[in-house]
């Protein structure tokens, strides 16, 4: 039905839409505003990002931005239930759980965004190049990604972590190494789609070389698809990173992390079930935020 509708839609209002980039950015913002899910996601993501910036600055300048010192024991009674003094209660050592969750935010959000940005950039360039070049490069890329697809990200990250040793930097590197292949694959597919578009041929006839075509025509035109995929994917990185921390491969105690907190508090589940639940809920909330935002962007921009 849509094709017929479109065929019959008049060529009106052509001038009114999208004159340039800044207006296009405004259009994205307005489409977020009109989509309830995207708006909720946007708000959640904004809260997480602002919190992590504030926390990171606070840690850098050694300013106290948490209600309590997250590492200090016995700021309250041990295993206190949630209250106004301790929003999420205290743990077995009497540390404030809320402060610990806050201080872990820049770690989790930062690692996820760094991994996604790396994967996006490397994947886009590699995939686009392979898509255009074809032949051996393309074949090599496809086979490498085949191999990476066969190993679960978490398991490979575990193995790399054991080889390099645990820690935030090593975990980030491990995740970056395994995260780019799907992006390369996606970029390659999208490139193949637009490679048949005549504007690529027209660019060749205009004397543009392959790098000019990749950076001038191909990447800008596949960027939106990749960005939307990436925004939906941030949640997955958060989940996998939380899993690695749960397994004790990420940040090392006494520094807190969401996944690590769930892991170390899970033994108190019989007596104080809220202890592992709060960090778990925070992880879920972050992932939901990015999912809603990504879904909303997909709905409004791809339609």
């Amino acid at each position: 039905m849509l094709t017929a509708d479109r065929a019959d839609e008049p060529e009106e209002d052509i001038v009114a839409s999208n004159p340039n980039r800044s207006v296009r950015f405004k259009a994205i913002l307005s489409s977020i505003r009109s989509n309830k899910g995207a708006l909720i996601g946007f708000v959640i993501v904004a809260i997480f990002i602002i919190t992590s910036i504030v926390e990171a600055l606070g840690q850098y300048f050694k300013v106290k931005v948490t209600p309590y010192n997250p590492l200090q024991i016995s700021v309250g009674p041990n295993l206190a239930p949630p209250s106004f003094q301790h929003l999420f209660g205290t743990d077995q050592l009497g540390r404030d759980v809320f402060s610990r969750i806050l201080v872990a935010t820049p770690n989790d959000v930062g690692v996820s965004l760094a991994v996604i940005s790396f994967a996006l950039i490397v994947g886009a360039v590699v995939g686009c190049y392979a898509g255009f070049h074809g032949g051996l490069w393309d074949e090599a890329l496809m086979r490498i990604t085949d191999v990476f697809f066969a190993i679960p990200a978490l398991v490979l990250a575990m193995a790399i972590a054991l080889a390099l040793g645990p820690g935030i930097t090593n975990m980030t590197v491990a995740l970056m190494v395994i995260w780019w292949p799907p992006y390369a694959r996606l970029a390659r597919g999208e490139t193949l789609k637009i490679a048949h578009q005549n504007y690529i041929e027209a660019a060749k006839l205009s004397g543009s070389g392959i790098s000019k075509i990749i950076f001038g025509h191909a990447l800008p035109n596949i960027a939106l698809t990749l960005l939307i995929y990436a925004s939906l994917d941030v949640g997955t990185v958060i989940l996998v990173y939380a899993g690695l921390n749960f397994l004790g491969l990420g940040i090392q105690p006494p520094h807190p992390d969401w996944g690590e907190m769930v892991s170390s508090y899970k033994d108190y589940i019989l007596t104080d079930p809220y202890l592992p639940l709060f960090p778990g809920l925070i992880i879920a909330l972050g992932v939901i935020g990015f999912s809603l935002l990504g879904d909303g962007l997909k709905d409004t921009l791809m339609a």
Partner: protein
Amino acid sequence: MNIAGFIIRRLLLAIFVLLGVVTITFILAHSIPGNPVYAWLGRDASAHPALVQLYTEKYHLNDPLYIQYYYYLSGLVQGNLGYSPAKGFIPVTQVISETLPYTLQIAFFAIVISIVLGVVLGVLAARFHHGPADKSIRAFYLAGISSPSFFIALVLLIIFTIFFHLLPTGNAASLSLAVPRAITHIPMLDALLEGNFTYFFSALQHVILPSLSLALGTFGVVVRVLRSSMLDVMRSNYVRTARAKGLTENTVFFKHGLRNAMISVVTLSSLIVTWLITGTIFVESIFSYPGMGQYVYQALLVQDYAGILGTTIVFAIIIILSNLVADILYVVVDPQIRLG
């Protein structure tokens, strides 16, 4: 392209991919500073200098890398994945063969639950899209896919075991029951074959929570993809043709829409398997289920490197096999691939 040719091609590809996986684990094993035997033996290696000496010679670790690669490969082919310090230095292959069947049990039920739940809810969401049913289904699956599987497992544990005492946890079946005689080596299947229903039902009770925790984290992927591809299909020209024929909306939806939309769900199946398999690491350790996932967790705690690399290869084999099944299923549902 005929089906046989297609499957042969896929098999060759699978072997190639497996070789790639093995190469990666080889590189990882050798990227440990110092003698890779430390990786093979774990951190207890230093306590056993004689063993280190033995393995260094046996695997030619002082020789060039390509010779080591050859011995690594031949060791793998013979089923030698090293010895597991986490399990008192018994061979990793033995640990895997004891624990894998339990993981397969969980994975099987998890796949069934997540596909059934995913397809039913996906169809409902697409049929009543933008309605209240669609919105509540969306909230439900978003909560599911956004929660780490260890979190879902903890929540289920609290609800079903601690508050309501509904389902047992710990172990694969009641410990008072004898494990059935190994026929297929998968205990629940063996119990059925033997007619040992007491064991089967006990095992079923123990398997529900772990597999439900896994399924709740993955069914959302099915819902999401099925819903959106269903909506796409319902806008397609052939659905318009079906409507023009005068078919009822239900016939159009199920016969012309769903069949085509299911193709995209098939492509998802390997992704789902990957997620489920990864999830067993958390879920089994939380429910103390004696599967391979729990072994991975134990191996991590003591840095049992041989165990980690061995299970990595097994995980990869499972995923490669599930990809193969997905490819074959794809051929079955899409005549264009079958005949084109």
